[in-house]
């Protein structure tokens, strides 16, 4: 049975913890709003890019001459998995969920006899995979100390991937990130970057918007398509980073909300047993005094 003093100490320490988790939750909520705004603001660019790309890709007559970014290298041997996670923990299952998805896919590919390389963006995911897939992590990109995510970040990562692809280091590139659905739900998602998966359905929309007119291209169609595909990779990565940032804050917010609630519950039950014990002690002292008086 802990003494009254022990209980008091424990209550105080849980109270301190609750203050911290509460503060973290509020910070995450503020950051989440900003991250969500950034993700929304980036959408028009990505949407336009998709439209133009879909239009262009449709017009490519012979797939053989097309850019390898669109049709692939014709092989399916080496896979590059771009894993995007956070730099910091304390955000519930966020990092673990992404890492789990990457691990499952990596193990599946390895079983099929493929070669797997992992590019880890953010420290936490790499830490998570270090034990079993550490040797597969070929490259890392740190997001440490960044206030907000800029397009330069995405460009740097995209350049890394592009030069790797040009050097024939891999055939297929897939990006893993958490799609932000709501504060309580972030879905780990895999998105294939190379060869590019173009959105379906936008074709008809784009055509409708354009009144069915045919575009002129400057420079040649395949040149511009190639340039656009390159840029599209950076855009997709940027989108992934922003979605991830919003997801991270959302996950942290709900995790910290839970932690705060748990701390409150704990304080309640500790206070209850503290009071009960205090009462028992008072009763005990009273009995001692009374029986002492009776004995006289």
């Amino acid at each position, binding site marked *: 049975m802990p003494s009254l003093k022990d209980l008091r100490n424990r209550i105080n320490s849980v109270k301190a913890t609750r203050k911290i988790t509460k503060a973290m939750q509020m910070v995450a909520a503020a950051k989440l709003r900003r991250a969500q705004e950034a993700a929304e603001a980036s959408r*028009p660019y990505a949407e336009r890019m998709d439209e133009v790309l879909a239009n262009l890709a449709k017009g490519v007559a012979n797939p053989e001459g097309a850019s390898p970014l669109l049709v692939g290298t014709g092989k399916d041997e080496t896979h590059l998995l771009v894993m995007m996670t956070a730099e910091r923990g304390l955000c519930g299952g966020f990092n673990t969920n992404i890492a789990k998805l990457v691990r499952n896919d990596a193990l599946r590919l390895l079983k099929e006899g493929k070669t797997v390389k992992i590019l880890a963006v953010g420290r936490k995911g790499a830490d998570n995979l270090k034990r079993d897939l550490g040797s597969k992590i070929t490259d890392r990109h740190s997001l440490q100390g960044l206030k907000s995510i800029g397009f330069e970040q995405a460009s740097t990562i995209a350049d890394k991937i592009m030069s790797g692809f040009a050097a024939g280091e891999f055939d297929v590139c897939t990006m893993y990130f958490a799609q932000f659905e709501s504060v309580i739900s972030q879905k780990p998602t895999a998105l294939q970057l190379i060869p590019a998966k173009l959105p379906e359905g936008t074709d008809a929309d784009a055509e409708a918007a354009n009144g069915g*007119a*045919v*575009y002129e291209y*400057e420079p040649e169609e395949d040149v511009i398509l190639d340039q656009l595909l390159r840029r599209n990779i950076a855009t997709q990565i940027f989108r992934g980073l922003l979605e991830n940032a919003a997801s991270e804050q959302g996950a942290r917010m709900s995790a910290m909300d839970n932690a705060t609630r748990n701390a409150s519950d704990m304080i309640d039950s500790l206070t209850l047993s503290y009071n009960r014990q205090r009462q028992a002690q008072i009763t005990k002292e009273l009995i001692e005094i009374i029986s002492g008086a009776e004995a006289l």
Partner: protein
Amino acid sequence: MAGTFKFELVSPERILMSVDAEQVIVPGSEGEFTVMAGHAPVVSSLLPGVIHVTTAKDKQAIFVRSGFAEVNAEALTILAERAFIVEEADPRQIDSELDAAKQALDDCDSDEARLHVNRAIEELKALVKS
């Protein structure tokens, strides 16, 4: 004037500008071209340079570093990786653009493109002085 059309300048981070323009001069990779209402649909890549936007009220100059322009029946959309409005630019930004433009000059493969980038550099230098 033949009327206006929608002009949108979009960077990855946000929509920088969305106005009804009368005339926009775009630094396309195969030469500058002017877009007015009813222009034929074109998709063109851009070289570093200045976009001149004329609206009913005023004129604005925007510097872009590479990107794409898409003209369709109703609108001109420019997807730019980096862009800033010339009047609001600060010197450091111009300096970094200047470096990037010089870099782009090395990558150019045709004389025309080189000529064009040179002009962008001249314009930037003029900005540095002013």
